[in-house]
């Protein structure tokens, strides 16, 4: 039993190394891929604009729940006005980057992985190689950059809508004083917190996009292979994001 555990641990580490090596290959090609700006813009659209609906809806609901739970909890200490602080800090530092990353992995990550996997399975990537076009430069890098650029923006949108949601519940419904809500928030939330959130969303963006393009590019060229690649994308992204979340939080403290 332990042999199996050890083997799977080794496999995971090897895969991690492969993923990092793949990042190296991608980064080398970035300067040459940049001139084809239209490709990157298309991918920012695919990864970002198309994810807007789910991000905004989720942000709204998460913010509203935060408003409810936060209000209920703070009310026990008579500190309802701190709701603004609680919502802002919770969203900007944690929920914004993390939940956005998880949703991103589920929506955009799987789309990237399955698209690349399908291109692999239908020989499109081999055809490109045969036409002396480097598929990494033409296909992988724009998708990777699209995800990396889209993630921080999505996380910011999530946090903004979340704060609105919290405000909706707290101020409009629970009648917390609007002034206190915002003034306490402004006083307690600093640029450091915002920085932490932005750093997190950028790092998560790199991680999720990298994992998605890696799994898609290296998918087995069959229907099951593509399916397995998309599943692995979501699972690996989730674990890595949560792990990195801890690291970055600890780093900032």
């Amino acid at each position, binding site marked *: 039993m332990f042999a199996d555990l050890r083997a799977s641990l080794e496999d995971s580490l090897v895969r991690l190394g492969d993923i990092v090596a793949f990042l190296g290959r991608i980064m080398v090609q970035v300067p040459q891929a940049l001139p084809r700006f239209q490709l990157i813009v298309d991918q920012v*659209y695919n990864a970002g604009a198309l994810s807007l609906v789910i991000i905004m809806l989720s942000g709204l609901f998460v913010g509203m729940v935060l408003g409810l739970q936060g209000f209920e909890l703070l009310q026990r200490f008579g*500190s309802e006005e701190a709701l603004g602080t609680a919502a802002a800090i919770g969203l900007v530092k944690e929920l914004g980057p993390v939940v956005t990353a998880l949703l991103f992995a589920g929506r955009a990550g799987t789309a990237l992985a399955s698209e690349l996997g399908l291109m692999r399975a239908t020989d499109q990537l081999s055809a490109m190689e045969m036409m002396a076009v480097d598929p990494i430069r033409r296909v992988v890098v724009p998708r990777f950059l699209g995800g990396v650029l889209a993630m921080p*923006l999505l996380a910011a*949108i999530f946090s903004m809508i979340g704060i609105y949601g919290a405000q909706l519940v707290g101020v409009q419904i629970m009648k917390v004083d609007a002034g206190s809500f915002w003034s306490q928030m402004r*006083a307690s939330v600093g640029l450091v917190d915002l920085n932490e959130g932005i750093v997190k969303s950028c790092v998560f963006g790199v991680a999720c996009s990298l994992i998605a393009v890696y799994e898609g590019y290296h998918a087995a060229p069959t229907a099951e292979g593509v399916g397995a690649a998309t599943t692995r994308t979501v699972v690996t992204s989730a674990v890595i994001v949560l792990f990195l979340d801890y690291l970055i939080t600890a780093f900032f403290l």
Partner: protein
Amino acid sequence: MRKSRAMNLGTGLFVMLGFAALFFLTTQTTSRGLSFHSEPHYRVTAKFDNIGDLKVGAPVSMAGVPIGRVVGIGFDSRDYKAVVSMNLNAKFNQIPTDSDASIYTQGLLGGKFVGISPGGAETFLKNGDQIDFTQSAFVLESLIGQFLANMGKSSDHSKSAGDTGEQKK
């Protein structure tokens, strides 16, 4: 190629929205924020010995009703007092000039706010006036200090009355 124009438009909108969100978060949630005042107001000031942790943006209320907001906190180096500037809603322009301003705490552990109790004068506060009667914030440490000091005094009494050899500071 024909899809490109629509896609670029969508991407542009998305990126703009993203930056708008970042702008919002930077300015509306942090202390470097901007504030938007839309209603007409007039400004009054008040000096306090101790404002505790009163913050800019804290509400100003009268009889529990919010009538304005703290917009500035300064320090007078001549009489070593805190100067609090407040914008009061122009609707509430019949506050007697001898009213007093005190700093209260919201709830048990909440933030501070300014409460105004009306006086009896016949003239009313207008823009640029100062409220002369103030009461400082309730500071927990001072109360504890007072409490301990009182305890010390009472133990002194019991010492001089009847010596029991207690060692109390």
